[in-house]
């Protein structure tokens, strides 16, 4: 069996184990409504996680996604309040803003050669500040949240039947993301850039363009995430997505995307996002204080990361032993 398949099975196994665990602790856990809720709650982090997966594959990172969401949300709020543009135009402009934010990140990283961590830390502040700069204010100049209640917008926060639109978008984006990753040159290039940049260059791959496109994907995903979040909240604030930037990264890493680049895929992130959401939901159902939820969540992440490190070391050891055996045989 392939190593990647085993890794995928382990992720799935951990997700199942978690769900079994929580269905023992709460009888409200394992039913269709709650499972759909888990998927819904995983969706925004998961959607952004698709883009973040691309960036991490190129051995980068993006800390600006939360601020990018806020910027997109506030742009749309301004359009909503001050213009007569149709809703679809508002959504389109929101996505363009996301793309532009991603482009900016990409240029800073790939053309100015700033380390990704620092660059996106800086843009995290910049996007948030821009959000405040364009924030909706009341007559006294105090920043307020802008209600966005127009029905053709709010419906995106709702559900068709029992399935939420955002969940559908999540699944569609994951499928699209996986297809792009596995079926296009761009996707192959992401792996090549992350795993062996020199070899990628020798094969004629444009490194800078690949990295910029990865960051633009994140921007687009963040914009989509912002649309669904604001539609569900029926409003937006300048604080939208504050502290949210780590959730997509955590989803990707738990799903087996390697922070040093080159390994992992979108389906892994999908499972990772579900895992984090199932975890949140299960801890919530323990009817404990949210404080305990945080502690338990943190501990489980540490355990997963430690398990992953141990597993990788073990696989490495097996591979080495295999190599030695071959060498001895020869």
């Amino acid at each position, binding site marked *: 069996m392939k190593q990647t398949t085993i890794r995928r099975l382990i992720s799935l196994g951990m997700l199942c184990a978690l769900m079994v665990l929580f269905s023992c602790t709460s009888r409200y856990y394992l039913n269709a409504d709650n499972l759909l809720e888990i998927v819904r709650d995983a969706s925004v982090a998961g959607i952004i996680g698709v883009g973040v997966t691309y960036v991490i594959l190129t051995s980068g990172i993006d800390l600006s996604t939360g601020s990018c969401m806020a910027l997109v949300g506030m742009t749309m709020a301004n359009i909503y309040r001050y213009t007569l543009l149709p809703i679809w135009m508002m959504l389109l402009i929101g996505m363009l803003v996301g793309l532009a934010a991603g482009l900016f990140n990409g240029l800073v990283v790939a053309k100015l050669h700033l380390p990704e961590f620092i660059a996106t830390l800086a843009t995290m502040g910049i996007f948030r500040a821009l959000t405040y700069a364009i924030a909706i204010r009341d007559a006294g100049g105090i920043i307020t949240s802008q209600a966005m209640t127009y029905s053709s917008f709010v419906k995106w926060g709702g559900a068709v039947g029992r399935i939420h639109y955002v969940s559908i978008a999540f699944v569609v984006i994951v499928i699209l993301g996986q297809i792009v990753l596995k079926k296009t040159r761009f996707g*192959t290039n992401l792996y*090549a850039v992350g795993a*062996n940049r020199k070899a990628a260059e020798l094969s004629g791959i444009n490194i800078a363009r690949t990295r910029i496109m990865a960051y633009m994907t994140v921007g687009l995903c963040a914009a989509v995430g912002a649309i669904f979040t604001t539609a569900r909240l029926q409003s937006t604030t300048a604080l939208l997505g504050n502290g949210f930037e780590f959730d997509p990264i955590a989803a990707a890493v738990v799903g087996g995307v390697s922070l040093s680049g080159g390994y992992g895929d979108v389906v892994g992130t999908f499972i990772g996002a579900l895992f984090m959401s199932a975890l949140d939901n299960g801890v919530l159902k323990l009817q404990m204080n949210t404080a305990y939820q945080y502690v338990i969540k943190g501990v489980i992440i540490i355990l997963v990361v430690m398990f992953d490190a141990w597993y990788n070391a073990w696989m490495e050891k097996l591979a080495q032993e295999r190599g030695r055996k071959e060498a001895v045989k*020869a």
Partner: protein
Amino acid sequence: MMENVILEAKGICKSFSGVPVLSQVDFSVRKGEIHALMGENGAGKSTLIKILTGVYTKDSGSVFWDGKKVEINSYKDCQKLGMACIYQELSVIPPLTVAQNVFLGREPRKLGLIDHKKMNEMTQALIDQYDFPLEPGALVSNLGIGLRQLVEILKGLSCDSRLLIMDEPTASLSGKEAESLFSIIDTLRKKGVSIIYISHRLEEVYRLSDRLTVLRDGKNAAVLNHDEIEPKKVIQTMIGKVVDESAGSSKEMRKNSNEVVLEVQNLSDGTGFFRHVSFQAHKGEILGLGGLIGAGRTELVRAIYGIDRYREGTILLNGQALKPSPRTSIRAGFGFVPEDRRGQGFIPLLSINRNTALTNYDRIKKNGLAVSDKDELEMCREAIRRIDIRPADPQKQVGLMSGGNQQKVVLGKWLMRDLKVLIVDEPTAGIDVGAKDEIYGILEELAKNGVVVILVSSDLQELIRVSHRILVMRKGAIIQEFDSGVVTQSMVLEAASGLMKKEEAV
């Protein structure tokens, strides 16, 4: 005859900052031949290859491809012509499949999406054509290093390459993997692909090549046809007779004390890098370790110094067993100059001062908790004086210095200690001639003061010139011992290549 030649280089000259590396080199490869390129380290092989693949630009001379004059200014130019280089450091992408690697950047597409089926079929066709033991859909990360190399070869062939350049292709392969590579090379020859084969291993060259070009000191030393390739003759040509005669015999015989300082008994690592190695080293002796790349020399000295664990055997320093760890080794009087200078030898961002002091803080005076900057600097000045670094600026960042000076810094951090054993692994690789001599001087000086120096070197001239006694390793075992007063380079090379029969050896 001429129309048979696919690549011809005439009168190639190249110099780096005024030092000629290649002068008037002629080189030609015929269609469907395996042409070996040989020469000692620094003879100019890699420079020639880099000129042919467009990494360097030549100073003068011309290159002909298929009879037409061409200019190769980048690796892309060389690919367009139909040349591909299989690099020593692998350039495959592990997380991708074999087929994805082969067609990286040129994937066949249908409606904008990669046509995996077609790509796999095309790869399978290539695999069938050359009979490689590969599967198109297998992930490269699951392949051993030998198969990864085949993927790279396949990638080279997929661009309709008519000439492959292989630089030390067997350096990291096991015997079995090397065997299958040879049969593949044979198949390629039958298909009309030309190969430039660079290797230090005489047996391979002898077995594979149709013709052989030997470079010596950046000049053509000889071009030999297959029936003229005879190991001893090749060695003679590579080394140049004059050097061979003088190297060992002109040296004064040294008298070493009989006091055994270091004794290694029956050392094995359990995985075959080295097996049942035993030797003794005496006070004030420079003990050379010779052998081909991959013979297990580096692994052996790393184990002696305590970096890697060994499974059985003992290491005795002045009769006392040592616990394997660099820390205890250093305390006991060991010093170690690693092979990978930049990666393991020094701290590039720090100054000479800090680098030389790194191993000596137990000896530097302290005022309470604070290290005496004056004492530290004084020690560094002393080290700089002894190893003669120019300019003698203790604050200079080591990462920005020349290779020779960097190596002197690595040596310098051990010189200030009360050394008993100093292990140096390829101390002069990539270092200019002047600095080389100075490093030899330092090693000899140390030996005069009673330090045991263990010298691992692939440079035969250096090995014979500096060592008092030479142990030759082959496939993880010590197979031969020479007194350097009587040994010649060819004797060492023959032993290392396994050409010398046991009964011949005394």
